[in-house]
């Protein structure tokens, strides 16, 4: 008998079924990943196109893994590896990320490699965004339940229908007509009793009115001069997104127009709208003029509800201010609502110029300015904007 004892414990399926010992820790880890998405949501939303997109869409989100920090050496520290017998100084043996030297199973220990890509439904991302904006759930529900601006219009009469739509007058007339016709043919018929027949029943027929006027267009105008950074883009996108969601809940068909401007305004896609940064000066009037042109061409105010909103950091050429004010006044005339949002992340206000002072001279019920300094401001500004909208309807036609 050898001196060492050994014991074999056979496999028991019962243990295997009970043994998901990592379940709790995996759930905690997933919570942390979700939190990481939340923390990075400004970047994600600022980079992704979400306005007017299908909510079922799946978005690939690169997030930083949950790093486990320790004191480690930096990238400058040399390492040792094994070659195939032909190693030469200067030869490239790997790249940062991917097959860098180092055992593959330890890749996560190396700095800079702790990245995951997670699939997230746009829906979920939007939920996170609303959470991020601290939208009270109650308010969200109310927004979603606002009845749309549909009306019913009468269109002729039918022999079938529901009780409430019975047209009594016509029904009685039909009976009388039938009675008179019957008596003509057969004067001997019983004079006293002549009951209603199913054929007499006449119902009003209603059709849902698809009025052209129940369409709306959201005109997003943005300053795309170089100074619009990730944070500003995020704030702008949050704002436009809320606006779009709200308008969409009120109208059946909502179109979106993106206008980017620096010294010249042009119509662009959402992608370009948020991603194109150009340097140089800013002429706000150029964006407004472009919006006016597009409205005149495609969205006549008698048929469309027009919501225009402009986001900028407020850095306009002084010489353009008078012009901008004039264009804004014109825009306010054709729009249901025209808003100006000045986006100045914390602290920037002190040393940058502002359009808010200029627009103070614009006096229209449906014109509203807001200042957005951080993401917590987006929701209150949005509410403030719509409070104005609830005032008497501006003349749109």
């Amino acid at each position, binding site marked *: 008998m*050898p*001196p*060492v*004892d*050994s*014991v*074999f*414990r056979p*496999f028991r399926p019962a*243990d*295997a079924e009970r*043994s*998901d*010992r*990592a379940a*709790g*820790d*995996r*759930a*905690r*880890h997933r919570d*942390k990943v979700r939190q990481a998405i939340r923390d990075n949501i400004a970047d994600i939303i600022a980079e992704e196109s979400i306005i007017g997109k299908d909510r079922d869409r799946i978005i690939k989100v690169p997030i930083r*893994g*949950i*790093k*486990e*920090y*320790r*004191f*480690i*050496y*930096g*990238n*400058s*520290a*040399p*390492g*040792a*590896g*094994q*070659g*195939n*017998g032909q*190693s*030469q*100084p*200067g*030869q*490239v*043996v*790997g*790249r*940062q990320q991917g097959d860098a*030297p*180092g*055992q*593959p*199973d330890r890749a*996560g220990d190396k*700095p800079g490699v702790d990245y995951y890509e997670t699939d997230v439904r746009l829906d979920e991302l939007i939920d996170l965004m609303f959470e991020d904006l601290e939208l009270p759930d109650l308010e969200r529900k109310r927004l979603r339940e606002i009845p749309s601006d549909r009306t019913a219009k009468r269109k002729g009469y039918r022999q079938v229908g529901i009780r409430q739509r019975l047209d009594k007058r016509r029904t009685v007339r039909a009976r009388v007509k039938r009675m008179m016709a019957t008596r003509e043919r057969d004067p001997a018929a019983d004079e006293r009793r002549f009951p209603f027949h199913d054929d007499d029943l006449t119902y009003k027929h209603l059709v849902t009115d698809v009025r052209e006027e129940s369409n709306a267009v959201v005109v997003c105008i943005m300053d795309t001069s170089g100074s619009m950074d990730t944070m500003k883009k995020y704030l702008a996108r949050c704002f436009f997104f809320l606006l779009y969601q709200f308008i969409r809940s009120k109208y059946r068909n909502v179109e979106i127009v993106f206008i980017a401007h620096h010294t010249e305004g042009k119509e662009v896609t959402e992608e370009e709208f948020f991603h194109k940064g150009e340097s140089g000066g800013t002429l706000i009037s150029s964006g407004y003029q472009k919006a006016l042109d597009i409205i005149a061409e495609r969205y006549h105010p008698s048929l469309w509800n027009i919501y225009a909103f402009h986001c900028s950091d407020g850095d306009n050429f002084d010489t353009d201010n008078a012009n901008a004010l004039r264009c804004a006044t014109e825009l306010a005339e054709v729009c249901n609502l025209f808003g100006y949002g000045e986006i100045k992340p914390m602290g920037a206000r002190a040393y940058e110029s502002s359009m808010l002072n200029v627009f103070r001279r614009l006096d229209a019920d449906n014109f509203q300015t807001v200042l957005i300094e951080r993401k917590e401001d987006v929701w209150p500004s949005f509410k403030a904007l719509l409070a104005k909208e609830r005032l008497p309807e501006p003349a749109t036609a």
Partner: protein
Amino acid sequence: MPTAWDIGDLETWDDRVREQVEAFGLDCYPQEFEVCDHNQMLAYMAYSGMPSHYPHWSYGKSFEKLKTLYDHGVSGLPYEMVINSNPALAYLMRDNSLLLQILTIAHVYGHNDFFKNNFTFRSTRAEYTIGTFKAHAQRIRRYQEDPSIGLERVEAILDAAHALSLQCRRNLAVRKLSDEDARQAALEAARPPADPFHRIHRAQDLEEPDLRRTPQVPDDDLLLFIRDHNPYLAEWERDLLTIVHEEAQYFIPQIETKIMNEGWASYWHKRILDSLELGPDLQLEFIVRHNQVVRPHEGSINPYHVGLRVWEHIHRSAGEGAAGDAAIFAVRESDRDTAFLRRHLGEELVRELDLFEYQRKGNDYVITQVADADGWRQVRDTLIATVGMNSVPVIRVIDGDAGGKRTLALEHLHDGRDLHPEYAERTLSFVHQLWQREVQLETVIGGKPQLLVHSDRGFTVKAR
């Protein structure tokens, strides 16, 4: 290839393997084998093989990562997983072939012998391993369930403690001086030597050592220092630091002997299986599997491969046979990876293995030294600098009351390698979290001495 086997087969082959283990003079703890499926194996891997381990999200992360790699076929599962305990505990995968089980069993006895005999493992108290880990798990669960503490707070302390767990003493064979002993030693050192001419000239001034300074000598054990010198920690917080520290101490010998240990087990599974009458089918599969395990990994270091080659080299150089055996048994007892490589990885072997040194240039890793007459020594030294605990920067407490404001002063023993700045900043914030007062770290960044400070107002870097 025969894949069907039952426990009876395993026991039969295990008997034959053990006969060889005895014949070769390996000295093992009793051994237990548990047959498991791949999900259990993934879980054992995520929890360092322990049958019972305290919960923490990082093990969930580890599990997900292992599972993803496994599911996508990026990496297979290890054939073996052995834990250093008495009796030693090892896992065998249910789906492996009979040959893989035999190979694993032989390999496991190699590790078992190494755990029992290598000097670095003497401090691990193998007979208590399983019980200790279980007790730790119970205590931590109790804190999590305690309504006055809760999961979040326990996790926050564990996060910070894990960040510092390897900032501790590396050589456990050297006794640590208590502060009292250190004070005595400082006094002794300060006492002037006996002066035969004390009658004719004035006695030297006695330079009093600063005995109030804590620690008296720089202290490597960050967690313990914080535990013992931050009076504002709650009892349960102290206990968590103790647990994390104890578990790290348990694993350090394995970190320190990775190449030796894997090489040793590979060396013995080879010799044992060669000495068994495997039969042609098994023999063929053995050759294939053995080569899969000990093949070189281009661009990195496969400890199975490098370790095996060094052991073979030692055996050969000592003159094969009994002399060779005596030589390797002596080395397995007295070395750790650093000494093992420094003494036995010579120019010839560095050349033969085609080891090289690489450095990062931009996004590429570029070879900077190869195994030629001029470069081999540096290649070897770079390897030594990255094995075991040498890959962990040495950070020591030099003062627990810097400036009289209870600031914790740390120093980084800079050896030419800079700290990773982001990781240094974030780890320092964990130190700050545990110390609850300002902490500062002396280091060198880009050749310039720097002082990294983390206080209540956040992180700053000052030139020193």
